[in-house]
């Protein structure tokens, strides 16, 4: 016990642990928003969209511009929060219709490489439009400060994230399990050809799913914008994290994404305390173990 407390002096600090758990939860919820979209798109179209992190980044930049151009200070954040993900959803729709639709029948590797190419294109366009300097998005006035939790300061903006994300999760569950569209989406993840044979317009479903997944990435980016420096490179950072989440949880699994996002969020939060230098390596090591033991992830389905 003494060894443990000397190695990890924070272990007896209950309030610190509580705050750490909560910040891990907020990180996990961001990751969930992004990875569930990626997972959904894979489940239906069988494309691993590597440009998903780019959508997240574009949404954060949309927030920067929208808040700048809007005169009404008090409401501008909330309006931007609504509009930015819609903008990204439209972008996703355009990409699906013009590019991805042409390659659904091709080698999966080619699809992967194409979305990899999108990262470069979108990244450069963002650089050209917004310039190389980091931007910041102000937190809304009501959530600019911090609250005390067990005596420890906790940024109140994260409370919004913690409050909003379960709503999104429940909303997604309702969409997937309580609507006809959700049923079609779930059916498509099981057997696309059969769905087509039954008379469903699969091509339109693909577009809808891609737009919806892009919107989720946009929502994640818009929500995350006030918590990070809006900068080039956030696409790669978030992609890699989302990727780890999706792989651990299982591509195409809704519950898998949720569980694994929270797990990874907590791991990052505590990894920084335990192994400050190697927390990201720890993350990849866990992902590697999952890929070797259960390549299809905790709740995914084996590749046929």
């Amino acid at each position, binding site marked *: 016990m003494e060894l443990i407390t000397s190695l990890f002096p924070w272990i007896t600090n209950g309030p610190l642990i509580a705050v750490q758990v909560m910040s891990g939860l907020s990180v996990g919820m961001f990751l969930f928003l992004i990875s569930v979209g990626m997972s959904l798109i894979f489940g239906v179209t069988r494309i*691993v969209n590597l440009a998903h992190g780019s959508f997240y980044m574009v949404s954060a930049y949309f927030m920067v511009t929208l808040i700048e151009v809007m005169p009404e200070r008090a409401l501008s954040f909330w309006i931007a929060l609504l509009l930015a993900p819609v903008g990204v959803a439209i972008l996703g729709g355009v990409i699906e219709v013009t*590019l991805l639709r*042409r*390659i659904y029948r*091709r080698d*999966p*590797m*080619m699809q*992967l*490489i*194409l979305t*990899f*190419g*999108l*990262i*470069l*294109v979108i*990244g*450069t*366009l963002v*650089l*050209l439009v917004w310039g190389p300097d980091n931007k910041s998005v102000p937190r809304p006035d009501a959530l600019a400060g911090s609250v005390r939790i067990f005596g420890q300061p906790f940024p109140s903006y994260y409370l919004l994230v913690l409050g909003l994300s379960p709503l999104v999760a429940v909303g997604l569950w309702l969409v997937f399990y309580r609507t006809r569209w959700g049923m079609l989406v779930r059916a498509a993840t099981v057997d696309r050809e059969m769905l087509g044979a039954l008379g469903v317009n699969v091509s339109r479903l693909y577009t809808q799913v891609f737009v919806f997944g892009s919107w989720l990435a946009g929502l994640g980016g818009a929500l995350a914008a006030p918590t990070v420096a809006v900068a080039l490179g956030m696409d*790669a950072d978030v992609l*890699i994290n989302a*990727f*780890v989440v999706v*792989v651990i949880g299982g*591509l195409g699994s809704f519950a898998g994404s949720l569980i694994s996002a929270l797990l990874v969020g907590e791991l990052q939060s505590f990894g920084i305390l335990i192994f400050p*230098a*190697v927390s*990201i*390596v720890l993350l*990849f*090591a866990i*992902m*590697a173990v999952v*890929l*070797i033991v259960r*390549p*299809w992830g905790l709740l995914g389905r084996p*590749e046929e």
Partner: protein
Amino acid sequence: MPRGIALWAIGLAAALVLPLVLSTFFIVLLIEIAVVALFATAFNLLMGFGGMVSFGHAAYFALGAYAAALLAQKAGWPMLAALAAAPFVAALGALVFGFFIVRLTHTYFAMLSLAFGQIVYTVIFKWTGLTGGDNGLLNIWPPALLRSQTAYYYFTLLVIGTSFLGLHAIVTSPFGYALRAIRENPRRARFIGVNVRRHQLYAFVLSGFFSGIAGGVFAFHNGSVFPDFAFFTKSFEPLVVVLLGGVQSFYGPLAGAFGFKMLEWLISKWAPIYWPLFLGAIVIAVIVLLPQGFVGLLGRRAWRPRPSIAK
């Protein structure tokens, strides 16, 4: 094959004579083309011949580059010894990671290779004491004899030319044909007695080995090494080169490397900021419009299975 030999003779003569008439700038460009060509050809051993696409191949390039740099700078090894050790370090990395990676297929193969690649990048980036972190390692130069660009060009030509011969021998060996059999139909390959996983691992290690040579040669050419060598965007480079040149032809990546570097030079000259945009756009265009790559456009179909067999 007299035509093949004639082509080789012309190519070799051109490679030997060109530096005498070109400016230093183009000699540097030729060195970089040679490095990219070797890296991409090593990568294509996996992608074109083995049907395995790695998204983290920059890791082995970086392992070679860092091994050469560290041995020369920190351990005080002579350049040739450091350079000779580089591919073995890269191959060792490829053996350890590849052991796990070849257990997976397709998408998952690509993802695990990316994950290991990012681990290598993170370790290089964070291990500031050894690798210099973000600042990289500077002042890694060859001995005085090879210091001029022309001398280093001939040295590069020798090392990379030999590596090409080695890779060509691998591709045309029984091992190379077994690899192609695995690419076309792993199950059938197993039925006829090919140990699929072991062959894939050997290919992975060999590919890492030659990527390490490219990395080592580049380290001494560049005079410095940086963590970016291992970043996942670097892994994109051989992929683009192979796509440009055409998958599944041995010389495709060589042609692709020329096209790639010339494009990079042209575009970087008037607008370096646009380079990644073009790179991405080229890849997207090649995939959507030219599934066989540019060499495929010319009608070269070396080692491509006949369509009836492919499907």
